[in-house]
């Protein structure tokens, strides 16, 4: 009997000795909502965090003032990332809690120097999530995090949401840290990360998503503007919505906006005489969203004409990014090399070292098949309808 009792006791004790006992009350935690990492002089790493001040968040009831910001921005430095994190305790009364981080911003300096210095900690630490959207700041990350919230109270949340709504313009893509790591480790694939910059609109500081940053390995190699970014997204098939603006070539200074309803792309890699040949098939569906000037789209001829314009515009965007990435930056941001490796793993072994040199001369053929599904609620443009009357 006593033996059994002892056994039960041992069992219970062993169940309780599993460790991971970290009790922390909510009010002892500084909930980190945004993390910015910069490289400053002397090779020091500067960490900037946005910490929520829950008390100020309550806001509406009884708060009144509204002047108080619900986040505070704290900055610390260290030789390594971890040291910088722990140095935060020199400035903060609460233990920082990183699990709810909404955004990860790297400064331009650090990106140019190479992200390898900090990635290890970000991957290793269990508290940090890798599913957090990642951005490269033009300038320093600290500057971005210091911009007061505009539509939302918290800048980090605002940027996070902005990266989701940006798909309606398709001028930048949302890239999570995890995605970055995945492409980073892939063969023949260069990661791209959205760029963010600080602008001043009517005397008010604002952040703006400004295209994408191109990486070669862990280093920032160059940037894509919005036009080129759109081209990249066409090729990688990441476009969900967006507007294509084309010029009505028959009427000066009139424009036609087409709303992208759906888009698909397919990258096929072939080999001809040991030379890789890339084919990109882009399929697109759109609807007529806006017409300025007199134009009535009431015949299939006119619709076909619009389709041609559309094809041309897409082609233009795609060409621009191919030109920029392959010829200028020599970065395979489309994953052509990776696709080639998947299809011809043996051949890849021979050319993988010279892949970068081969990029400028890579043959990429683009096929675009676009369609305009409908013309909205009417056929004639408003100007055209007025003239007919």
């Amino acid at each position: 009997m006593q033996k059994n009792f002892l056994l039960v006791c041992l069992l219970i004790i062993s169940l309780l000795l599993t460790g991971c006992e970290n009790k922390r009350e909510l009010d002892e935690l500084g909930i980190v909502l945004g993390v910015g990492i910069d490289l400053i002089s002397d090779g020091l790493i500067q960490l900037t965090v946005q910490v929520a001040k829950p008390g100020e968040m309550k806001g509406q009831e009884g708060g009144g003032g509204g002047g108080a910001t619900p986040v505070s921005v704290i900055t610390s430095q260290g030789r390594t990332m971890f040291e910088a994190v722990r140095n935060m305790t020199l400035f903060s009364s609460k233990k920082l809690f990183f699990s709810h981080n909404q955004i990860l911003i790297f400064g331009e300096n650090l990106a140019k120097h190479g992200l390898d210095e900090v990635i290890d900690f970000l991957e290793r630490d269990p508290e940090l999530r890798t599913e957090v959207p990642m951005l490269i700041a033009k300038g320093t990350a600290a500057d971005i995090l210091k911009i007061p919230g505009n539509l939302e109270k918290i800048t980090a949340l605002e940027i996070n949401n902005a990266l989701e709504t940006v798909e309606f313009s398709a001028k930048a893509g949302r890239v999570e840290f995890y995605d970055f790591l995945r492409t980073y480790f892939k063969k023949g694939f260069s990661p791209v990360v959205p760029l963010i910059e600080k602008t001043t609109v009517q005397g008010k500081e604002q952040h703006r998503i400004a295209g994408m940053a191109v990486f070669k390995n862990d280093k920032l190699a160059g940037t894509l503007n919005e036009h080129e970014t759109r081209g990249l997204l066409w090729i990688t098939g990441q476009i969900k919505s967006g507007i294509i603006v084309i010029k009505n070539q028959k009427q000066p200074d009139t424009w036609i906006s087409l709303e992208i309803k759906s888009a698909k792309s397919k990258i096929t890699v072939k080999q001809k005489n040991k030379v890789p040949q890339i084919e990109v098939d882009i399929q697109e569906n759109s609807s007529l969203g806006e017409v300025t000037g007199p134009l009535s789209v009431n015949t299939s001829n006119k619709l076909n004409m619009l389709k041609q314009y559309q094809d041309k515009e897409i082609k233009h965007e795609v060409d621009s990014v191919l030109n920029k990435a392959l010829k200028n930056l020599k970065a395979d941001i489309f994953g052509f090399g990776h696709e080639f490796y998947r299809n011809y793993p043996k051949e890849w072994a021979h050319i993988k070292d010279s892949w970068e040199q081969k990029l400028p001369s890579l043959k990429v053929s683009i096929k675009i098949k676009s369609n305009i599904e409908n013309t909205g609620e009417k056929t004639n443009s408003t100007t055209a309808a007025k003239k007919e009357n």
Partner: protein
Amino acid sequence: MILFKNFFRRFRKQKNISPEAEWRSTCQQNIRANLDENLQLVRANLGNSSDVIIRSLKIASCNVDAFLLNLDGMADQTLVAECIIKPLILLEYQTDGNNNGVIGEIKDSIIAIADVKEVSSLDEALSGVLAGDTALFVDGSKNALVLSTKGFESRGVQDPQTETVVRGPREGFSEPLRINTSLIRRKIKNPDLILKNMTIGKQTKTNLCIVYLKGVCDEKIVQELKNRLSRIDTDSVFGAGNIEQFIEDAPYSIFLTVGITERPDVAAAKITEGRVAIIIEGTPMVLTVPYLFVEGFQSPEDYFVRPFFATLTRWLRYTAFLITIYLPPVYIALTTFHQEMIPTPLLITFAAAREGTPFPGFVEALGMGIVFEFIREAGVRMPRPVGQAVSIVGALVIGQAAVSAGLVGAPMVIVTALTAITVFLVPSLLEVTTALRLAITLAAGFAGLYGILLTTLLIFIHTVSLRSFGVPYISPIAPLTLKDLKDVLVNAPIWAMGTRPSQIGYQNLKRQAYNMKPKPPKKD
């Protein structure tokens, strides 16, 4: 459990002479032929109590002395006067004068009472008197007559207080045993309905009645119940709970293995399913065995409303049960151990509410839980007129003021309130839920979700090992009986409930005809 048993066994090795037997030996006397001796014996036994009525009279028909014995307030005195005294002293019926036959003559020809027993021992006569009957002692006879004249004040059949329904019968059990058995008899008019009486309690001599349906109920369960009941050697029985604790399968478990109901329709339904009911004199609560865990979620209302709604409400009860047990522990676990699992906006809301509150979340939860139990207990026990005071104190002082004073975070109040409301969706499991919640909350406070998981595992292990009169407690879920889930997972339409629960009514599984789904007549 075994440890406990051993612990108590040490104190139990005492002499085993029951005072009951002692008392019986003095009382086990035969009725004498001499009327005066009998009178003295009765006086001695009843100790000259003030409510004892002894009426001496002369039986007119044979000119023999006799006396009537009953208790004021227990026997119906008008009945005694009209049907016993009147015929005895007025009726000049010619007898053959044989004194030994007098008692038989009186029984057969004079007394106008339906239930008459001839007894020879004083004990039997007295126990009848103590239960409200009238005893007739006749000079020269060694037997006495016990005449059923029970007529005491009782509450009558009223609305059941603890189990109310919207559609369904409104009568509830009352205190007198006879009313209660008749309530069941009225529902099940079947000669197979067997009622077996027993008397328990040395002092109280409480009658109880085992009710079951022969041919449906397993006789082994009845026998086991009788064994358990006859083992009881106690002073007093004042309520169903007194008996319940003596016949439980797992007395140390927080799970109840004996059902309790106040509704004759529920008791009757359980009897027809093959269960045994124990009606106890003096309480409107009737026990039913075997009792399964799922019965706590089955309300009589379920069978009176349409099946879809019944299924919905049943799942509401399951959800409520889970919420009332798990909400406070999960809240504590998430806010003090696993903050990364809370969605960010919610976490910030929680953090904002926690800001400035002095106690750790665990203490907060425990404190609020105890406060709720205070209010609940006060609400049950307090005199009606002060009810408002309690609700004001409960709602305003503890809910509102505690938050605005910054003692407790608002989410904690919401958690406690939700727990409090949901617990009453499964009122029959109130004791279970309260204990479980406390246990899991403690575990969550020490080890977070890990603790919750461990306690849940323990609860599972414990419940699947429980039996109620040989029937697995968690059945029909474990062991799984798919057929019986018709009354567990869903509430099947009444016409589809073709079989009795197979763990209970296996003696006679078919309850009704199959294929009774109503449909419109076919067009010719």
